[in-house]
């Protein structure tokens, strides 16, 4: 009866209740969509970085990640034999030799990331072979390269042109070479598209003068859920005085920090939004309380305990907030789901802006139940806090005074 009474009380002034619920629903819709876009964008970027480039984890020689020095290259067989058969099924170790170089074509020179890759394993991790937009993929030890499409644009190169690479190799050797560009690649990371030069692992080892050595094992997982188990195997099986095992939290801390910072600034916007809605809700709750003070007097006169009355008023306030939140969630679910399954590809200036910040020019959303549940919880908390007004009023109510007012 208490719930029934509260629910029916809510609809005594249908128009006012509908306006209030709509306002809450709109705020929740706006907030959930914004949060989903924000989370989706960052998730996508982090996922792109970890799934399609870094791997969710990496193994290096101890100290390599800090120094990024080729001198800390290592024999891959040693690592492979230590973990072979112990990693979860479908977890692959993708060998790489990574360093930096100056790339030159004609009068243009550009700092680039050199990535020597195992063509088959790399393809499994990053699908790089399927991202060739022009030309062909690499072949083993053909002394050719593929480069990011944006880098080609910057250097004014096309497939068939020859790229000059200049760097420092293993233990200070000179590393110089000329490589024909056999293909242009477009990855999901705008940053990589601007600076990637990939060549087969033997070619890279040859270029840097470090045969049979690699700098990195990127770990290819079928999904993120295998990460804890994989990390545990790597950390127990490898000699951690010789090797460092890092997951994506260690590998891209700046990105994760930036995501947190952005989400914190987003939270401020959500806070202001909910503050405004809170005031709207408070207005309705105050009106609902004031205009029924005589009735509350009657209810206590006939024997309704003040705590029970407070309970009815609390349920009314919470219903107002939570029904609005649920309506908002119901409205935003199809929008978020649509954007999640069919991300919007940005073009023109907007796309440039995104890429300038190293983000893929795509509006995608995270279809994360946590976001929607949070909205409902926030509205529940707000309406509970706001219900303190009628609750306190009812707990201190004197029937005769209420009936006189």
């Amino acid at each position, binding site marked *: *009866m208490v719930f029934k009474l509260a629910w029916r009380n809510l*609809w*005594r002034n249908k128009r006012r209740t509908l306006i209030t619920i709509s306002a809450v629903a709109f705020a929740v819709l706006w907030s959930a969509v914004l949060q989903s876009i924000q989370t989706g964008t960052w998730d996508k970027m982090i996922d792109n970085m970890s799934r399609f480039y870094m791997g969710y984890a990496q193994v290096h020689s101890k100290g390599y990640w800090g120094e990024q020095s080729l001198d800390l290259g290592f024999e891959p067989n040693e690592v492979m034999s230590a973990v072979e058969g112990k990693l979860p099924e479908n977890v692959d170790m993708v060998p790489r030799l990574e360093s930096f170089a100056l790339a030159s074509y004609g009068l243009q020179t550009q700092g680039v990331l050199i990535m020597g890759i195992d063509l088959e394993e790399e393809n499994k991790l990053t699908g790089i072979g399927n991202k060739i937009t022009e030309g062909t993929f690499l072949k083993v030890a053909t002394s050719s390269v593929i480069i990011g499409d944006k880098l080609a644009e910057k250097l004014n190169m096309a497939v068939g042109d020859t790229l000059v690479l200049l760097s420092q190799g293993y233990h200070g050797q000179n590393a110089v070479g000329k490589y024909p560009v056999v293909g242009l690649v477009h990855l999901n990371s705008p940053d990589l598209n601007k600076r990637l030069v990939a060549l087969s692992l033997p070619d890279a080892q040859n270029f840097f003068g470090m045969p049979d050595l690699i700098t990195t094992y990127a770990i290819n997982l079928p999904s993120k859920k295998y990460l804890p188990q994989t990390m545990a195997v790597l950390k127990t099986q490898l000699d951690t005085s010789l090797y460092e095992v890092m997951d994506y939290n260690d590998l891209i801390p700046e990105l994760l920090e930036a995501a947190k910072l952005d989400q914190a600034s987003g939270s401020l916007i959500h806070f202001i939004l909910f503050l405004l809605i809170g005031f709207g809700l408070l207005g309705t709750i105050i009106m609902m309380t004031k205009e029924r003070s005589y009735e509350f007097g009657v209810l206590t006169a*006939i*024997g309704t*305990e003040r705590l029970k009355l407070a309970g009815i008023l609390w349920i009314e306030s919470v219903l107002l907030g939570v029904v609005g939140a649920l309506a908002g969630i119901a409205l935003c679910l199809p929008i978020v789901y649509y954007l999640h399954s069919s991300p919007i590809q940005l073009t023109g200036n907007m796309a440039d802006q995104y890429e300038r910040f190293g983000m893929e020019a795509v509006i995608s959303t995270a279809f994360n139940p946590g976001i929607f549940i949070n909205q409902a919880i926030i509205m529940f908390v707000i309406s509970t806090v706001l219900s303190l007004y009628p609750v306190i009023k009812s707990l201190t109510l004197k029937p*005769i005074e209420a009936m006189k007012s």
Partner: protein
Amino acid sequence: MKVIEVKGITKTYNPDKVPVEALRGVDLTIEAGEFTAIVGPSGSGKTTLLNIIGGLDRPTSGDIWIGGTKLNDMSENQLIKFRQKEIGFVFQSYNLIPVLTTAENTEFVMLLQGRSKSERDTRVKELLAEVGLSDKLDKRPSELSGGQQQRVAVARALAAKPKFILADEPTANLDSASTSNLLDIMEKLNHVEHMTFVFSTHDQRVIDRARRVVVLEDGMIKSDDRK
């Protein structure tokens, strides 16, 4: 058996500013089964006396016992519980809960008392039959006439099986036919079930039917006649 006993009741409003003495030493005893009208001009203290008897207001001085229980020392929450169990109220403007149906309004106090569903259902049907509203169980107050609403209020007051019913100007908003009908029901309840009724009223039709008439004037009992 004494149902209500008030001794030396005074009530002064605004004692620190402009004091208004609403009651000035009222002594009154109501026995079980009485059908009493408290009458008097506006401002004579009728409603104040009823509020104090009903535990809705506290006297400035004097003592009040209901069924042998002294109300003076009870806390606000104890008074609410006491009213719920011992006193039925009928108000001038009916004061039904607008969002509940006739049956739900009647059931409401029993629900507060924690009575079982079957007991509530049976009693609601009995009571609404007694007040002649068996065919209006699912109607909301807005769908009933003033007289019908007041009959629901009587059924609600009776639902808790109280010791007595306090009715503050119960016929003030009713036409003659409704007044007569309501009084018939109350008289029947008084005769058949020996329910004690205490009214405050100026309505001569109520006064004519009352078996005891207490006249208040300037906060004091001027006369107390039993017919």
